[in-house]
C-alpha cells in the first residue's frame, strides 16, 4: 500500500516536471514561432523605449491599425545600451531562425549589410516600385540601402551625425562664431580655455561617443569623397589623411573635460547647456534632449553648426526597417512597411520622435527650427555615413571603439592607426 502510494507520488512528480519542462519549451520557442505564422500578429522589434521614441512608435502603430485593422502589432522593443542590448537579442533570434516581423537597423554597410550577406533579408525592389518610392526618396539615400542592385530596407526617419552644438550665450560673450575649420576651432578653444570654460564637452561612457567625434574629424579632414572611399574599403586606412585627422583629434582632447569616461552623452550636452562647457559634437538626437528635457529654445538656448570642415556634407544616421527572409508570412510585414514608408506614416512618426522624414515631399512646416535647417542640408548636401552608427561592419566598429579607448588615454596616434588598419584587414569593409 505504502509502496504503491510512493510510486504514484513519484509518477505524479515526474509528470509534473515533464510538464514544467514542456512548458518552458513552449514559452521560449514555440510561442513566437506561432505568432510569426499567423497573419493576425506582427512583431515590431526596435530599441525605441525612450519617452519620445516610444510615443512616436505607438502613433505609427495606431496609424497602421487604422489602415490594417485585422493585424495586431506587438511592440518588441528592447531597452538599454543605445540599442546594443536590442542588437544582442536580435542576433540570437536571427540565429534561431525566429526573426521578428521587422526590425530597426541603421542604414549603411553595417549590421544591415551583414544581415543581407547572411541571406537573412529579402529584397524590396517590387515594393519600392509598387509604392513609387524610387521618386519619393533621394537616390543618394537609397544607395545606402542597396546592395548588388537590390534594395533591402525602408527608411523611416533621418538624423544627422556631424553636428557641433554650442552655447550661444558664451559664444556671443567672447565674440566667437561657430568654427567652420579646425584652425578656427583651436583658436576659439584657446579663448574659451583662457576664460576657464571647457571648450569641448566629451562623453565616452558608452564607448562610442569618442568614435563619433573622431569619425567627424576624419570627415572634416579628408572630405566626403575620401571618407566614403575609406568606409567602403576602397582606400587603405594607412592613408596619411587618417593619421593627420587622428592627430587633430588628439589635439582636441587637450580642450575637453577629463571625466569623459564617466559621462553619458546627455551629461556632456548638459555641460554645454549650463555653460560650463561651450561645444559638443553629437548626433542631432541631442536636439531632442535640449528641447524636451532641458526646455531650451533652438537658436537662443543652444546653437548648432556642421562640425569643422564638414559643411556641405550630411552624415546620415537613419533608422530603416526591412523584410527578414525567414518569415513564414510576409504580407503583414510588407503592409507595415507600406505605412512606415508612406508620407502619412512619416508625418505622424517624425515630429513626435524629434527626427525628420527622409521623404522629399516632407513638409518643413511640421518641424522646429533645428529640424528645418537639417532638412535643408539633407536635400542638397552629399550624404555619407558615420562609423559606429551603421556605416561599417560590426567587427570593424568594435575594433575601432577598442582602439579608441586606448588612444584617448595614451594619445599614441600611430598605434591607433595601425590597429584600425589591421582591423580593416581582418574584417574587410568592401
Amino acid at each position: 500500500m505504502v509502496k504503491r502510494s510512493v510510486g504514484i507520488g513519484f509518477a505524479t512528480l515526474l509528470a509534473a516536471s515533464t510538464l514544467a519542462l514542456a512548458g518552458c519549451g513552449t514559452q521560449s520557442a514555440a510561442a513566437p514561432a506561432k505568432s510569426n505564422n499567423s497573419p493576425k500578429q506582427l512583431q515590431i522589434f526596435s530599441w525605441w523605449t525612450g519617452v519620445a521614441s516610444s510615443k512616436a512608435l505607438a502613433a505609427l502603430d495606431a496609424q497602421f491599425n487604422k489602415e490594417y485593422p485585422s493585424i495586431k502589432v506587438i511592440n518588441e522593443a528592447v531597452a538599454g545600451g543605445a540599442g546594443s542590448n536590442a542588437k544582442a537579442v536580435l542576433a540570437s533570434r536571427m540565429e534561431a531562425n525566429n526573426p521578428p516581423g521587422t526590425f530597426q537597423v541603421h542604414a549603411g554597410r553595417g549590421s544591415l549589410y551583414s544581415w543581407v550577406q547572411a541571406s537573412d533579408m529579402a529584397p524590396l525592389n517590387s515594393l519600392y516600385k509598387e509604392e513609387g518610392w524610387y521618386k519619393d526618396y533621394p537616390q543618394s539615400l537609397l544607395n545606402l540601402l542597396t546592395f548588388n542592385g537590390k534594395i533591402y530596407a525602408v527608411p523611416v526617419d533621418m538624423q544627422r551625425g556631424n553636428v557641433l552644438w554650442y552655447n550661444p550665450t558664451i559664444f556671443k560673450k567672447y565674440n566667437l562664431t561657430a568654427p567652420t575649420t579646425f584652425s578656427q576651432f583651436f583658436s576659439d578653444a584657446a579663448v574659451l580655455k583662457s576664460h576657464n570654460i571647457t571648450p569641448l564637452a566629451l562623453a565616452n561612457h558608452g564607448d562610442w561617443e569618442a568614435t563619433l567625434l573622431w569619425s567627424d574629424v576624419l570627415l572634416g579632414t579628408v572630405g566626403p569623397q575620401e571618407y566614403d572611399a575609406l568606409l567602403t574599403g576602397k582606400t587603405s586606412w594607412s592613408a596619411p589623411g587618417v593619421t593627420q585627422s587622428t592627430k587633430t583629434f588628439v589635439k582636441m582632447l587637450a580642450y575637453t573635460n577629463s571625466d569623459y569616461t564617466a559621462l553619458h552623452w546627455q551629461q556632456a550636452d548638459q555641460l554645454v547647456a549650463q555653460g560650463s562647457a561651450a561645444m559638443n559634437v553629437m548626433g542631432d538626437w541631442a536636439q531632442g534632449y535640449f528641447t524636451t528635457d532641458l526646455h531650451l529654445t533652438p537658436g537662443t538656448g543652444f546653437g548648432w553648426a556642421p562640425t569643422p570642415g564638414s559643411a556641405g556634407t550630411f552624415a546620415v544616421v537613419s533608422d530603416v526597417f526591412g523584410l527578414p527572409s525567414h518569415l513564414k508570412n510576409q504580407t503583414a510585414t510588407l503592409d507595415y512597411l507600406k505605412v512606415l514608408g508612406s508620407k502619412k506614416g512619416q508625418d505622424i512618426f517624425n515630429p513626435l520622435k524629434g527626427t525628420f522624414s527622409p521623404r522629399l515631399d516632407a513638409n518643413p512646416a511640421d518641424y522646429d527650427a533645428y529640424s528645418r535647417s537639417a532638412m535643408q542640408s539633407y536635400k542638397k548636401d552629399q550624404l555619407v555615413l558615420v562609423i559606429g552608427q551603421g556605416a561599417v561592419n560590426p567587427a570593424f566598429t568594435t575594433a575601432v571603439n577598442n582602439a579608441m579607448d586606448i588612444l584617448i588615454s595614451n594619445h599614441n596616434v600611430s598605434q591607433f592607426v595601425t590597429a584600425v588598419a589591421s582591423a580593416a584587414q581582418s574584417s574587410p569593409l568592401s
Partner: protein
Amino acid sequence: MIKNAVKEPDRAPLMARRPKWRFSWDKASPVLVLIPSLIALGIFVYGFIFWNGYISLTNWNSYIPNFSFAGLKNYAAVFETFRFQADIRNIIVFTALFILGCLSLGLFLAVLIDQKIRFESFFRSIFIFPMAISFVATGVIWSWVLNPQPNAGINLILRALGDSHPPTWFLSPIIIPSIGLGLIKVGIPLALVAVAIAAVWQMSGFAMAIYLAGLRAVPDEIKEAARIDGAGAWRLFWSVIYPQLKSSTVTAVIILTAASLKVFGLVYAMTGPGQDFTTDMPTLNMFDTTFQGSQFAEGAAIATILFLLMAAFSVPYLLSVLRGENREENS
C-alpha cells in the same frame, strides 16, 4: 555516507546470487525522479558548455555561421589584444581585492554579531540586505557615491576633512606599480579599487553569514578549556577559534571567486570598460565581441577561458570536499 550505509548490506548477496532482476518502484523511483533534471542539466548546462567550446574552434566571426575548423586561432587573436590582456590583469586584481575585502569585513562583522548582542537578528539582516540588491543598482549608486568630481559624492566629505585633492576614484588612470608586460602595464589599477569597494559592500554580508555559522559551530567546551588554560581573547580567537573556521573560509572563497569572475552588471553600470580598459572585465569584453562585434567564435573563446578559470578554482575545492567525505567514510 548514508548512501553507502544503505547499499553495503545488499551488495554481498547481489554478488552471490546472480541477478534475478525484478522491477520495483523502490529501486526505480530515484532514477525516474532524477531523469528530468539530468536531461535539463545535460542540455542546458553541459551541452551548451561543449557547444560553446566547439564554436570557439570555428571561423564563425560574422553573422554568417561558418563552422569550419579554425584550431586555436581565436584564442591567439584574443590573447593578442590589449583589451584582453588588461582584462586578465583586472580580473585577478579585482578578485583578490574583492575576496580579501569580503573575508576580512565579513569575519569582523560576524565576530561582532556573535557577541550575544541585543537585536542580533536585526543587525544580521541589515548586513545581509545589500545582497538582495541587483548589481546594476549597486553600480549606479556607487558611481554617484564615488563621483570623480571634486565637489560631489564622498569627495565632499573628504574635502571637508581637509583633503584638497580628493581621489578621482574609478577614473584614475594610475596603475601601481605599473610594470610593462606584453602590451599592458601590470599592477593594481586604482580605478578597480573603487569597483571593489562597491562589490565588497554588496557581498561582505554573505561572508558574514558563512562565518557566523562557522563561529556558532565552535563548541563552547573548547573555548572554555582555552580560557582555563589562560588564553586571552586575542589568543583565543586566533589560536582556537580561527583555525576551526577554515572550512567556512574555503566555502566563502570558492563562492565569492565564482561571483567575482562572473561580474558584469556592476561594472557595466558603474564604469564601463573605463579609461584604457582599467576597469574592463572578460565578461564585458565577451559581450562586446559577441553581440556588438558579431565575432561569435572569438566571444566563445573568451567564454571558454572564463570557464576554465572558474574550473581552476572550483575543481580543487570539489576534489578536496570529496576526499574529505571519503576520509570520513573510511574512518
